[in-house]
């Protein structure tokens, strides 16, 4: 009897431990949106695409957003650089990895495209704040 109780206790602790470990990942998996910095290591590694990890840090103060848009399914990954309006280093980086600036853009920003037909990178500013915004949009509805 005593042994059985011990086993049960151990099972509860184990399952609880796994749940405690997994819970942040489950939450991140189902989140509709998130805001985080590079110091939030778990979020940074989970959400951030390579292109934003390697984006030149043009300001010391920056932050990331992720938005999961359902329906017309899209993922939007964003880095926001505060206190700057100089995009030249970002343009150079995008050119260096083979992205081309598009002649037209559907919003007030510059549109860039690389080899992935589902992906568009938008480089722009935010009105009312001194900030550069890089939005990486992956459009899953655009497969055909």
């Amino acid at each position: 009897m005593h042994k059985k109780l011990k086993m049960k206790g151990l099972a509860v602790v184990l399952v609880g431990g796994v749940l405690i470990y997994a819970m942040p990942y489950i939450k991140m998996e189902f989140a509709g949106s998130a805001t985080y910095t590079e110091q939030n290591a778990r979020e940074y590694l989970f959400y951030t695409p390579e292109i934003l990890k390697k984006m030149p840090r043009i300001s010391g103060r920056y932050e990331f957003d992720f938005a999961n848009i359902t329906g017309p399914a899209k993922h939007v990954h964003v880095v926001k650089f505060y206190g700057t309006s100089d995009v030249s280093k970002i343009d150079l980086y995008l050119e260096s990895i083979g992205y081309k600036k598009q002649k037209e853009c559907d919003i007030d920003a510059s549109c860039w495209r690389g080899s992935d037909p589902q992906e568009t990178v938008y480089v722009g500013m935010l009105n009312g704040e001194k900030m550069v915004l890089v939005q990486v949009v992956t459009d899953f509805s655009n497969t055909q």
Partner: protein
Amino acid sequence: MSKRSDIVDRRNSNNLKYGLIYTEVLGWIDLGHAQGTDIRTLLNKIDAGESSGQDRYDVTYSQSMVDPTRTLKMGKFITWRIKRGRPYHERKSIALAIIMSLAMKFEGLQQAFPISLVTDSGFSGEDLVSELLGFYRVVAIQNPFAMLRPLSKEDALRRWDYYGKIGNWKNKGFNPLLFPDPAISPHVKPRIGRLPNFMQTVLPWSDFRSGTVDVVSENGNYMDSAKGGTLPYA
């Protein structure tokens, strides 16, 4: 699933691909839903069918959700068979009906168990009207925001704080769900508003008897890989 922290300022309506704004004309608008890129794709498919030379052509439209790790894509699709020879205004009308029909089904999927456990997004007040706005951004006015009377971020936050999160307010139609300013009249409640004129110029196709448009798949479900999936309609 919209959160308070998604709210952005009206001045950035046309330079963001995500975020939430409040407009006096359409209520909450999810900028991510209101882009219309999928609508442009759908219209292109109809155009391609018209120039295909076939007497009738099939058009499939789907909506889905993809998890952040891009493992799984899950959604709904419908396929309609269209008789060739549709003038431009009829193509828009058919496209609008396809989108409205599927959007209702997709929101229903999100509201169903077990997805309802993890999101309050099914029929969330802003979803359908945002998609309708996306349609008109493609067929009519690319930057309509000045006409919609959007609020500053501070004012939008005040509306959110007064009424609570938008996911709690359901809207099963395409008319706007408005949240009147509590500072103007106390004891106000959300109410259904009327679409602005420019969003009433296309009537959704409703003639399924003449044989011009037939429904091939009325309510399809699918699950596929998010990247490099193999299903043709996904």
